[in-house]
């Protein structure tokens, strides 16, 4: 029983085609509670398609998705949110005009008590306080909870986006290249945050990355996609830079597989 529920999300045999392009050709993916799962692959390998299917933005042509053993149909991004799947995109993650608390609670605002709350008055101090608590819990700091995010660095903004998703994503947190636009130091910040989020919130985290050293640093499990198929699935202990690079470039595909493409 517990074994089964440790696998928060299990996707099997996922296929997806766009016109004549077979983006996914039967992909399996298992996300474990409290673990970081790196989804790796060259451009066009099908990572983004798979992520979009998990976050409800696309529907698979075939295949099955189980969440904690129950089959689910992730029909829309809203359905995904209801199922406890939260996604952080490369950009488009935060509203820069709003402060930390407002961003974290956007769409789920805390209202004041009493009559003012009835009129929709928001409780900014409470949102800031709880937002700061969340940031501290994930081991990151922001200068002041009342500053609009536009006055923060790229890393801090992305940290807020991750903190937001970690706070509301009950079971699965999806990160689509969360550090793509960031510098080295900021990337380290965000990756720490991802790591902490998985451990502290006991969430299953999937993240897409191209950066092999980064993957080896924070992932527990690694899945490498090549041309719409899983070509390598391994635990961190078994992975190396060389192995991942060969897998990403397609060197691990069986000859039969390669004939099947194009």
């Amino acid at each position, binding site marked *: 029983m517990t074994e089964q529920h440790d696998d928060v999300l299990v996707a099997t045999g996922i296929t997806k085609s766009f016109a004549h392009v077979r983006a996914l050709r039967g992909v399996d993916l298992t996300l474990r509670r409290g673990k970081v799962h790196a989804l790796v692959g060259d451009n066009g390998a099908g990572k983004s398609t798979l992520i979009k299917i998990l976050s409800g933005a696309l529907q698979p042509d075939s295949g099955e998705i189980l969440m904690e053993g129950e089959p689910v149909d992730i029909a829309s*991004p*809203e359905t995904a*949110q209801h199922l406890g799947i939260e*996604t952080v*995109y490369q950009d*488009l*993650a*935060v*509203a*820069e*005009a*709003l402060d930390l608390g*407002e961003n974290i609670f*956007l*769409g*789920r*605002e805390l*209202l004041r008590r009493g009559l003012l709350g009835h*009129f*929709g*008055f*928001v409780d900014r101090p409470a949102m800031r306080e709880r937002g700061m608590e969340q940031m501290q819990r994930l*081991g*990151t*700091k*922001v*200068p*002041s909870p*009342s*500053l*609009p995010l*536009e*006055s*923060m*660095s*790229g*890393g*801090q903004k992305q*940290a807020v986006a991750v903190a937001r998703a970690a706070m509301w994503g009950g079971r699965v947190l999806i990160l689509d290249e969360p550090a793509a636009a960031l*510098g080295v*130091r*900021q990337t*380290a*910040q965000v990756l*720490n945050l991802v790591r902490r989020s998985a451990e502290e919130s006991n969430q299953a985290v999937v993240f897409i990355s191209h950066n092999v050293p980064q993957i080896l640093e924070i992932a527990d499990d690694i899945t490498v996609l090549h041309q719409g198929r899983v070509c390598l699935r391994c635990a961190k202990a078994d992975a190396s830079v060389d192995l991942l690079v060969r897998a990403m470039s397609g060197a691990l595909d069986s000859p039969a597989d390669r004939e099947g493409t194009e």
Partner: protein
Amino acid sequence: MSSELAVAKPRHRKFADMLTGSTGNGLILTVLIAMILVFTITSPAHRFLSAGNFTSILADTSQILLLAAGETFIMIAGGIDLSCGAFVVFSSVICAKLVAGLSATPEQASNLEFPHLALGLAAGIVGGVAAGAAWGWLNGWITVRWQVPPFIVTLGTLGMSLGAAQIITGGLNVPGIPPAFQETLGIGKIFGIPWIAVVAAIIVGILWLLLAQTRFGMRTYAIGSNSEAARRAGVNVPRQTIQLYCLMGFLAGIVGVLDVARFNTASIAAHTTDNLQAIAAAAIGGVSLYGGKGRMSGTIIGAFIPAVLHNGFILLGFEPYWQEVAVGAVLIIAVYFDQVRRRSTGSRVQAPDDDAGATTPNGNEVTHGSHAT
């Protein structure tokens, strides 16, 4: 100025934050106060500061202020509304037609008898406001459903509503409005303050709270700042967009009703530049055309600057046309200074806090802002 304060003592800014927001209105408020001082000192017998003159400035500003308040919401949400002045005309026509038609027959009206005054006024006020709101709803609906840019949608409804107003009236002003409407709401005063200004102040006060303190206001900023992020966060962006344009139309309807009260007729030929004046007031007050930024306090200041210039120039004996030249210049300069200040604010706020997080505190991005200035 205010940004240094923000870094030094964030907690003490709560009240200021509530009223002016993190960007503040220091510069433009200073300009307004300086104008008032200059006109007071230079006007003959310091007439500028007289109660009578202030009353006249208040009355002149009230209508533009109401439109500018609506424009503030729309612009913060990343939109624009060019149609509001035309909606004022349309609403005033509907209001005037209902008041004139329901209060009395034309024969009774020519004898200044209005047997159904209350009915006529109630229907006129409700009908005028509803007409404006309906046009606003149409703006929002087309923007959301057809994905036509609001600039084009509102340009289109500007023409449609103005044309419709002309068709209804045949291009003539509407006669037969009971003088009681003008004597009370139109030019009446309470404690020396025009009723129109009181109505405007109450409505703008409510809108200020709505924008600064409520969920609706917060989401307005979110939509203008990053509508995709707002949508993903669960904000019903289409619905709120329609509500925002509807609010703008509702305000235009109120201005139309006030107009009938003020001038005792539907002003079919007026308000042709109200839309631009309202947008200018908001922009002078620091509302960004790109969305996400702005405060009601700024818009209020921005709405008074043209009126003060106009009034001051008349008192000083300039041709009043100079006011339009001056307002245009103020608009450009205000937006320019605002942009300069925002850029420098970015760097100054960022510098002390960039050591947040795990590793080295010497961030490179700290220098970006200072290069820009």
